[in-house]
């Protein structure tokens, strides 16, 4: 017993080091799987508020540019609204809507890491929940991963864990959108079948197979495509519409039917077994 205590006292620093290293490695390795920790993220109270304070200071510098972007978007939406064929107000009834939209602002953005997360200034107080989609006026941005009362972290499409259903516009061949961590302007669309008719410059949009994003939200254009090792599927480099380095205003999309669809899918799965 004496020897054990002596051993602990002599190596207490080493043991402390090993203990702390194990703790941090455990947290880190856990994050390589799909969901990252509920506690270690920047949506917590302290970091959220510090980011918001610094953000409220820096927003003044590019107010003009942001206003110009919003006007541009308003113009585009009005253009679509006025040219819409059905102007029946019954179509605009909120009860019939499948998707609800919340607006928000980015208070922390990163794009230099292999796993990037974005923090936004809307949280569970604004009924934001994990697995809602986040888009900007140009295209998709990511999926809500964790929420606190006032803030939420978003798993960016620039994250090696991110997988999003996407397809080529005007065709129904769909694949998965992933990121190879190399370039923050380019993401990869994989698993597109070989018979697909591809041209450089074609638009890639969301597929609508998942319950997170509505179909046909723009993502980017085809920059380059190659067959993969097995020569049966395409791997496509997609140049993003969004400038991931310069983002401010975002929209959070919620599919009202999400729960129903997921429930149905899990029931079907358990019936199969």
């Amino acid at each position: 017993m004496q020897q054990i205590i002596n051993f602990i006292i002599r190596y207490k620093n080493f043991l402390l080091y090993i203990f702390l290293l194990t703790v941090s490695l455990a947290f880190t390795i856990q994050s390589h799987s799909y969901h990252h920790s509920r506690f270690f993220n920047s949506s917590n109270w302290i970091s959220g508020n510090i980011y918001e304070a610094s953000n409220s200071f820096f927003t003044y510098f590019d107010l003009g540019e942001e206003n110009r972007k919003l006007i541009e978007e308003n113009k585009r939406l009005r253009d679509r609204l006025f040219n819409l064929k059905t102007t029946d107000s019954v179509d605009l009834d909120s009860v019939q809507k499948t998707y609800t939209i919340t607006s928000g602002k980015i208070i922390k953005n990163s794009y230099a890491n292999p796993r990037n997360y974005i923090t936004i200034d809307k949280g569970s107080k604004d009924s934001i929940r994990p697995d809602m989609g986040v888009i900007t006026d140009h295209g998709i941005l990511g999926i809500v991963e964790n929420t606190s009362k006032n803030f939420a972290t978003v798993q960016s499409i620039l994250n090696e864990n991110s997988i999003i259903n996407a397809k080529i516009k005007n065709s129904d061949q769909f694949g998965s959108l992933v990121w190879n961590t190399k370039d923050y302007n380019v993401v990869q669309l994989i698993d597109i079948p070989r018979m697909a008719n591809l041209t450089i410059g074609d638009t890639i949009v969301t597929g609508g197979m998942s319950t997170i994003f509505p179909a046909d939200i723009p993502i980017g254009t085809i920059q380059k495509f190659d067959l993969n090792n097995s020569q049966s599927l395409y791997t496509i480099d997609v140049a993003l519409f969004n400038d991931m380095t310069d983002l401010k205003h975002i929209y959070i999309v919620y599919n009202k039917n999400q729960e129903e669809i997921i429930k149905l899918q899990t029931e079907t799965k358990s019936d199969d077994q």
Partner: protein
Amino acid sequence: MISNNYFINIARFILLVLVQVLVFNRLNFFGFINPMVYIMFLYWYPIKENRAVFIGLSFLLGISIDFFSDTMAIHAASTVTIAYFRPAIMRFVFGVNYEFQNFKLGNATRVQQFTFLALLIIVHHAVFFTLEIFSLANILLILKKVVSIGLASLVLCLLLGSLFSTKKE
């Protein structure tokens, strides 16, 4: 004197975390270079203090940076590693001198201070990017990041070091 020391370390801790997350994490020089200046905390920390407290503090420093940058606990793991190996690095750089009671970082030569800081940064970045990328297949990418971001960190740490030099002229 002792309480004054505590105060300086606490202030340093908070300021370095804020500077790191609000300024240097947003730098994105060439799209990926974000220098890590919070290593200066370990460079400046008094030598003769309790080692266990030092390792604990370094862990706290790393985990606070992780909180802000959504990097899980990678900063914590790498910071705690250099905190543990700091005495070994010091012995290597300053030789037996460092064992003496009256040894001070300010009294060491420029080259020694530089080597000490560079070694801290290299070990820290090597652990950090190995954990971040987490695959030996990408060893070249890890090396590229260690070298480029390490150089940036070194330059900025040296600047910070000379700006807040403890040496009285």
